[in-house]
């Protein structure tokens, strides 16, 4: 009949064409986004650089742009970078008072194994560039924390490290051994899991297995990079504050008077507890610290420090930075000495295990190191065992400033 619609002989064929066209359009859109996003990010680095952003911690694009920017120093760490504090480096240098800003990367509990992947994923953009890694000495007393790793893990960064070409296979094999300690995050990524297992395999065909996974891994990585670009464009489109210029405000940095003001700000908040921590923190966690006091001995402490899995991760991180040609500074903030030595009664010599290994690792890889050992017994430097106080941030800021101007002794 002439009025009837034409019969569909094979309905699936009628969907195939539109599906293919829309797929091509999506890929073209993603390639376009990947082309535009770095330029847009570069144009707004004044605001994006000093910000703490999940897109920065979990992606690569913003980190890479910060690493390439001449007036930005990437600062890798963990919760000290996101916990609000007066004189925190990202805010302190945000208006480039001495010609540069700091780009923080890291979140609550970011372990060194994740920092290794963050930096490794940025890769050769670090060649000839300054980069700072801030450690939490007290973290070396904790065992591998699965929740810390899972809460900071980035599939994209992990894939780039394993499937990218910035590291050789021998290095990737050592990284894979550590990554496989946390198999739970690999459930959604069978290609990466397969490649990691091949890398640690001792069977003769491990290399063939890895190279079999490589094209699939690279395809996944490319899709991840596209999604990274989309997330950055979306951030810039939705948050006008990141599109506003941040004018540089040049000012002389009088470190003595800055330290005095930090002390004036912080001392009243920390003067009423025996550990020198922030009073509010002490009030909340006092029972835990009391328990610690009875249990911790020098030998337990020393063996925890020696056996920490973080030494492996720090070693890999520093070797990776050396391979990438970066110019790293490792910042190890002063210890909460009042807590460890006066309150817990530990001998200061137990920490020599930590400093000896730190010095050995950094000197073997050519990294700069600032340990502030002379400040370990100074009061008011720690808000708790893991976080620097505003007074301590002034010390760290000064070291960052000296490092940026190549005058760090």
């Amino acid at each position: 009949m002439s009025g009837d619609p034409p019969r569909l002989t094979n309905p699936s064929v009628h969907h195939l064409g539109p599906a293919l066209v829309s797929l091509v359009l999506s890929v073209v859109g993603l390639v376009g986004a990947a082309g535009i996003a770095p330029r847009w990010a570069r144009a707004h680095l004044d605001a994006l650089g000093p910000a703490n952003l999940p897109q920065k911690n979990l992606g690569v694009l913003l980190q890479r742009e910060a690493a390439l920017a001449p007036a930005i120093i990437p600062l890798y760490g963990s919760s000290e970078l996101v916990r609000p504090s007066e004189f925190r480096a990202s805010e302190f240098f945000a208006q480039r008072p001495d010609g540069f800003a700091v780009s923080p990367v890291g979140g609550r509990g970011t372990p060194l194994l994740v920092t290794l992947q963050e930096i490794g994923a940025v890769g050769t953009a670090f060649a000839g560039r300054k980069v700072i890694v801030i450690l939490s000495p007290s973290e070396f007393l904790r065992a591998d924390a699965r929740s810390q790793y899972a809460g900071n893990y980035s599939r994209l960064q992990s894939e780039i490290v394993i499937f990218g070409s910035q590291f050789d296979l021998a290095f990737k094999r050592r990284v894979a051994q550590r990554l496989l300690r946390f198999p739970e995050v690999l459930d959604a990524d069978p290609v990466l899991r397969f490649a990691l297992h091949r890398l640690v395999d001792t069977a003769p065909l491990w290399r063939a297995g890895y190279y079999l996974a490589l094209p699939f891994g690279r395809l996944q990585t490319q899709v991840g990079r596209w999604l990274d670009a989309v997330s950055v464009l979306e951030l810039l489109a939705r948050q006008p504050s990141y599109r506003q210029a941040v004018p540089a405000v040049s000012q002389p940095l009088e470190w003595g008077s800055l330290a005095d003001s930090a002390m004036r700000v912080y001392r009243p908040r920390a003067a009423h507890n025996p550990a020198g921590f922030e009073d509010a923190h002490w009030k909340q966690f006092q029972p835990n610290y009391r328990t610690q006091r009875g249990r911790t001995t020098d030998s337990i402490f020393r063996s925890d420090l020696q056996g920490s899995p973080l030494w492996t991760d720090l070693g890999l991180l520093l070797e990776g930075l050396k391979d990438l040609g970066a110019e790293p500074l490792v910042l190890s903030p002063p210890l909460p000495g009042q807590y460890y030595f006066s309150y817990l009664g530990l001998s200061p010599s137990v920490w020599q295990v930590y400093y000896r290994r730190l010095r050995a690792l950094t000197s073997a890889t050519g990294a700069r190191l600032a340990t502030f050992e002379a400040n370990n017994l100074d009061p008011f430097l720690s808000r708790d065992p893991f976080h620097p106080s505003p007074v301590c941030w002034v010390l760290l800021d000064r070291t960052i400033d000296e490092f940026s101007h190549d005058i760090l002794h």
Partner: protein
Amino acid sequence: MTFYTDPRIRFAARVLQYLAIQLALIYLSSHQALVTPSFIYQGF
């Protein structure tokens, strides 16, 4: 030939339909991978 039976219109409508689905998937995947980690660490 009506609007619905014009094969070009039907083709374009399906392209848009698939495109909308793909864009939603791209948005959701990008958020899941790069904005909201699958697990939020609540400790120190």
